[in-house]
């Protein structure tokens, strides 16, 4: 009896969000698959072209290249911001006076719009009249040199996220009871041993959360790259996947091909998430499906 009443109530309560998720998250995936088999330039009518778009995208080296560039980008950003975030958290956790203020300060970049930060850094890194070059007293073409462009953009992303990552590690560190550390010290463990054998393993749930969410987010980077290096950067070295899809859909106006790329990205991200989940599930007692 209660269950039936509950059911009606439940579905009534769920109706708006169910509509929202179906219409704006689930349905679009299906529509992308349909668009992937059509040719559309945003202006005229849509025509069915079967797998032509898939062939075109496969033949277009730039898409594969953008996947590679994004992977390299993630490979630079994630370790850097995770390690720096952890170091910051360790320092903040020492409980020194003013730590709270530092913690707040470090999060400031994360509050700002990535687009706005990109515009800001485009000045800092400008070859002529830029702040960094003025500080260094040298002229370095941070964003125009094909070798420096991607690391520079990656550095801006790391700068933006370190404080945010540090917050999570801070919480994780504080969740480790002091008694554990005290016991280890009584057993004669050195600070280094304590860190590697006790702290790090106990931080796994936090590390897992941080890595999973940040990897997914970093794969989708767009705003800051768009502001720092429009048009994919020198020799296209900062042509990340989200940028390529945007360019293909809204500047080249080859929507069908962009849809194929979007689908590939989606499948890729699902695979990455599942792999991560499996890898971590074996190594931690934390159960995400609880």
């Amino acid at each position, binding site marked *: 009896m*209660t*269950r039936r009443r509950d059911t009606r*109530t439940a579905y009534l*309560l*769920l109706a*708006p*969000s*169910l509509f*929202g*998720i179906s219409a*704006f998250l689930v*349905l*679009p*995936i299906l529509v992308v698959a349909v668009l992937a088999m059509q040719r*559309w330039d945003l202006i005229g009518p849509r025509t069915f072209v079967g797998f032509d778009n898939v062939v075109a995208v496969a033949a277009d080296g730039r898409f594969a290249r953008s996947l590679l560039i994004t992977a390299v980008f993630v490979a630079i950003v994630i370790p850097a911001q995770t390690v720096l975030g952890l*170091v910051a958290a360790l320092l*903040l956790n*020492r409980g*020194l006076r003013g*730590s709270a203020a*530092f*913690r*707040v*300060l*470090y*999060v*400031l*970049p994360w*509050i*700002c*719009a990535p*687009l*706005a930060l990109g*515009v*800001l*850094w485009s*000045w*800092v890194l400008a070859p002529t*009249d830029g*702040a960094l*070059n*003025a500080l260094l007293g040298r002229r370095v073409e941070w964003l125009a040199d094909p070798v420096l462009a991607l690391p520079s953009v990656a550095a801006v992303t790391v700068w933006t996220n370190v404080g945010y990552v540090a*917050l*999570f590690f801070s*919480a994780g560190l504080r969740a480790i009871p002091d008694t554990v550390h005290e016991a280890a010290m009584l057993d004669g463990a050195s600070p280094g041993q304590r860190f590697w054998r006790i702290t790090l393993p106990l931080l796994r749930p936090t590390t897992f*959360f941080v890595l999973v969410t940040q990897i997914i987010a970093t794969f*989708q980077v*767009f*705003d800051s790259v*768009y502001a720092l290096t429009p048009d994919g950067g020198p020799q296209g070295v900062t042509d990340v*996947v989200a940028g390529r899809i*945007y360019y293909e859909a809204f500047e080249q106006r080859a*929507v069908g091909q*962009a*849809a194929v790329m*979007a689908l590939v*990205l*989606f499948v890729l991200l699902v695979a990455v*998430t599942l792999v991560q989940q499996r890898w971590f599930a074996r190594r931690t007692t*934390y159960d995400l499906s609880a």
Partner: protein
Amino acid sequence: MRTAGTYLLLALGAVVTLAPFLLSLATAVKSPKQFASEPVLSSPDPPTLSNFAELFGERYSFVAPTVVTAQVVAVVLLGQLVFSVFAAYAFARLDFPGRDALFWVYLATLMVPQIVTIIPLYAAFADLGIRNTFWALVLPYVFGSPYGIFLLREYFRGIPGDLLDAAKLDGAGTLRTIWHVVVPVSRPILATLAIITVVTHWNNFLWPLVITSGRQWQVLTVATSALQSQYNSNWTIVMAATTIAVLPLMILFLAFQRHVVRSITITGFR
């Protein structure tokens, strides 16, 4: 000694974090003539608000984009809070067939990247003829967010059953229960969700960029980007624009920072 070392490193971090903001602010209050003729790092002499004035002049006013952004955030916030609370309550406290499977579907949608949905949504909105409208900016987000629902469900599960039973005994229906029992008890997590929602949508760029054109429904991020194109290497004005773009949230953040910091760390895991 360790203390000194720690402070040194923390201070270094603070400098690296703050320097770009302070330098850009210094540039924003310099007159273009001074910027062109003196070294880049010289201090503004005298500091001037002319760059900001130009941003509030007739042609490149940042007033409209700021107001539009505030409107969008307000509506999305309202919708997300209400509808996410509804859904989270259903998942957390009600028993019905398909509950766990449906919740898993909700969670699964967290994996859908924004860049994937904007193309079909653009096509759909084009067919419906609602490109470049206020509702175009708001609709995809206003019906609740899976992340918010996930967050709230965890919290709602922890509400003592006695409170809810007591309400039921008093004859309260579902909505009354939610409003009078669940919401007051959940203020911290609701504050968290509110903060995350405000930050996410104030800073949203890709969807507004794509679905709006012209100045009528331009949000702050899109206006900043347009200004960057327009004023190219006139850095004094561009930096004034970024200052205006980041200032509102920064002020809000510094005012509520205790809540924000606590909120961010409550999220997602136990």
